[in-house]
């Protein structure tokens, strides 16, 4: 996950271009959240840095200090490879050397995701068992709003947070929540409970106390201890612990005690003295230890429905332009006909308008309309820049970052915690039919994060969504396959013979079969749920 919000370039050793991972180091054993420090020096301005774990994209930065926070407790234990790539504004991509890391976490949450709507499924593996586990949900003020717990005999924890607080009231939409799953062995916990009790009896100097527990009178406790010491035989006095200072010398008193959070209480009851250090697995919990934790931040999306499709294209002159124009008219008709089957308000946005983008004013108009609550899908046919972060005409464009800001879809840090994507206006479907559109940050701008597995959509029962874009340069003119590909894709996906239940994946496969040459050199990228149908 990226951190920081200002652009920097870090020189490496003067050799251009180069990118390398400074930390961690090769073959290091790591656990919890680790900082991945990167240095990059490239010929042109740095556009972004991507982080790959086992060849899969797990994070990217397009501005700010080049440092990733990677929570290793979201991946399986064992050997993993890590490398970064730096992309400059000319779309040159340089890879670092690959390092190998050994992940060792006693508690792991493998299918963690950062977005949810109704509930958050929690599927955790723990090497500590039999064990007590507790789930703590905090809001952005650090207030624990929900706690629930259980036990596991085999280290498998299958539960979920239903999106309500301790009073069974649904928590607010469009807000961030931090989830921590703490696990502690039962045998260790029992021992710790005893230890904790004796501490409470013997030491009034503790600066923290359990919520609801009456603090012992320090003078009474001291008197009892003194009496026990005085009455003890000499041989016992020899092994008795040194007497603590009398209460008058203790700097804190019961009127200044700080209440423990539920998480701190759980961890102290299970023998972990500093609960804060294990939140987000910041400290190495260690495989086979007696306690451990994992967690993450999640964003609760507001309820939303699929809605109308925005159709936009750039003007093209000549005969090919006429073909494109006619195709857009046909596509509009297909969507209008489909609306009869899939439900109301699923037609073409703007009273069946087709936005023809000729000027920067047209682009502004389009951008503003994308923020309209009724617009939930987009087919854009036009130009993309070299790195896939700008779409538009040959003279004006829409930046992914600006669009994300307008729609309210971007990464946001939890207070003192990890980053998560927030989505004020996610889209159901976006197809940016232009050069390199699958390479940049438009998926995130439309609330369809690249770093999300299709499995997570299924596990979290999230509203399905998908983004499509080309992974390279495409040419739109006669005798080139890309426009044919797009036409076939749409005609297949909206084929009423198939009752509008054909999946995006099947429609793409059909287009690939019609025009295999289109995707041989330039891949079509899909992020999100490939099982999306027009009826979803």
């Amino acid at each position: 996950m990226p951190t920081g919000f200002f652009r920097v370039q870090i020189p490496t050793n003067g050799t251009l271009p180069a990118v390398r991972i400074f930390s961690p180091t090769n073959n290091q054993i790591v656990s919890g959240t680790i900082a991945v420090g990167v240095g990059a020096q490239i010929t042109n301005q740095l556009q972004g840095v991507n982080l790959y774990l086992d060849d899969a994209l797990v994070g990217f930065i397009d501005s700010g200090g080049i440092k990733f926070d990677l929570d290793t407790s979201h991946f399986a234990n064992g050997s993993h490879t890590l490398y970064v790539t730096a992309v400059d504004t000319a779309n040159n991509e340089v890879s670092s050397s690959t390092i190998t890391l050994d992940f060792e976490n006693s508690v792991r949450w493998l299918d963690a995701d950062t977005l949810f709507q109704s509930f958050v499924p929690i599927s955790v593996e723990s090497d500590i068992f039999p064990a007590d586990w507790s789930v703590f949900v905090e809001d952005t003020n650090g207030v624990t709003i929900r706690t629930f717990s259980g036990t596991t005999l085999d280290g498998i924890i299958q539960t979920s947070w239903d999106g309500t607080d301790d009073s069974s009231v649904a928590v607010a939409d469009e807000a961030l929540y931090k989830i921590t799953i703490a696990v502690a062995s039962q045998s260790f916990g029992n021992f710790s409970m005893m230890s904790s009790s004796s501490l409470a009896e013997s030491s009034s100097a503790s600066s923290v106390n359990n919520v609801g527990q009456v603090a012992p009178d320090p003078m009474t406790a001291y008197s009892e201890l003194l009496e026990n010491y005085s009455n003890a035989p000499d041989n016992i006095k020899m092994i008795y612990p040194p007497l603590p200072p009398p209460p008058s010398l203790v700097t804190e008193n019961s009127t200044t005690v700080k209440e423990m959070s539920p998480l701190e209480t759980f961890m102290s009851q299970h023998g972990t003295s500093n609960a804060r250090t294990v939140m987000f697995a910041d400290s190495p919990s260690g495989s086979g230890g007696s306690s451990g934790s994992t967690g993450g931040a999640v964003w609760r999306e507001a309820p939303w429905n699929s809605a109308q499709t925005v159709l936009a294209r750039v003007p093209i002159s000549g005969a090919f332009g006429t073909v494109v124009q006619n195709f857009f008219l046909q596509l509009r008709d297909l969507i209008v006909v489909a609306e009869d089957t899939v439900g109301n308000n699923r037609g073409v946005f703007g009273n069946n308008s087709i936005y023809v983008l000729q000027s920067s004013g047209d682009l502004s108009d389009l951008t503003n309309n994308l923020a309209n609550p009724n617009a939930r899908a987009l087919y854009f046919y036009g130009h993309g820049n070299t790195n896939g972060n700008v779409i538009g005409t040959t003279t004006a464009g829409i930046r992914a970052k600006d669009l994300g800001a307008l729609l309210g879809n971007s990464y946001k840090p939890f207070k003192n915690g990890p980053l998560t994507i927030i989505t004020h206006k996610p889209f159901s479907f976006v197809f940016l039919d232009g050069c390199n559109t699958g390479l940049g940050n438009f998926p995130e701008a439309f609330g369809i994060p690249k770093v999300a597995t299709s499995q997570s959509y299924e596990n979290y029962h999230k509203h399905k969504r998908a983004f499509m874009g080309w992974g390279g340069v495409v040419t739109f003119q006669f005798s080139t396959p890309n426009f044919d590909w797009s036409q076939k894709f749409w005609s297949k996906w909206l084929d009423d013979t198939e009752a509008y239940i054909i999946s995006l994946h099947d429609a793409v496969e059909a287009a690939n079969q019609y025009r295999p040459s289109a995707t041989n050199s330039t891949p079509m990228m899909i992020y999100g749920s490939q099982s999306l149908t027009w009826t979803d």
Partner: protein
Amino acid sequence: MKIVTTVLMALLLFPVLALGGEKEEAYLKEKMIPMAQEFMKRVGLTGDSQPGTNKVLKHKVDYFDDRPGCLAVMRLTNDYIFSFHTEKNQTEIWTFRQIIKTYYALDDAPKEKIDAVKALNLKNKLNDKTALKLAEKYFKLLGHKEENFHPPRIHQSYWVGKNDVWGNLPYYEVEWYRKDVKESDRNSGITTLPEVNMTVSGIDSSLLYYSRHSLPIGSDF
């Protein structure tokens, strides 16, 4: 008006003839219908095991213009839909689906419809384990070999409605990626990974959906 009526009557009586020419008609009779019959026989869809042209609601054949072959789709009157892929003289069924409309358009559905969909799940007789076994049976019956694929992944279908209302459906989706697909590629945006997908019904244990992606015609490798 009379002409229009005549055309409509003809469409009603001979929908197949109205939608395709002789070449398409031959493809329908010689390829699509026999292959659909064989497919249904294999997976035990016996209700309409011998569909003839009279059972074809719609069909369409799109020939490639850069090589011999085509893609085609056929929808039967019982709402079975088959997609066909032909390269030169080799043909396969590359998708099959039964249309299930029960969870269409739940965004603004009335409470009664939501309740009906929720009730549907009560008819579910399967769980992840038994559904996987069932899907694996269909997988073999359709000629695939387990050793050519990674272990399958299964999840129960679901629906999402308005105001965070959601629920499970009595259907299970299973996917098999071919052995040569890297784990990291599965969510990397690549659209050409060889795989097989299925959905089975927890209500009557039938095959609801089947597709094969980026596999050679008629084989796993």
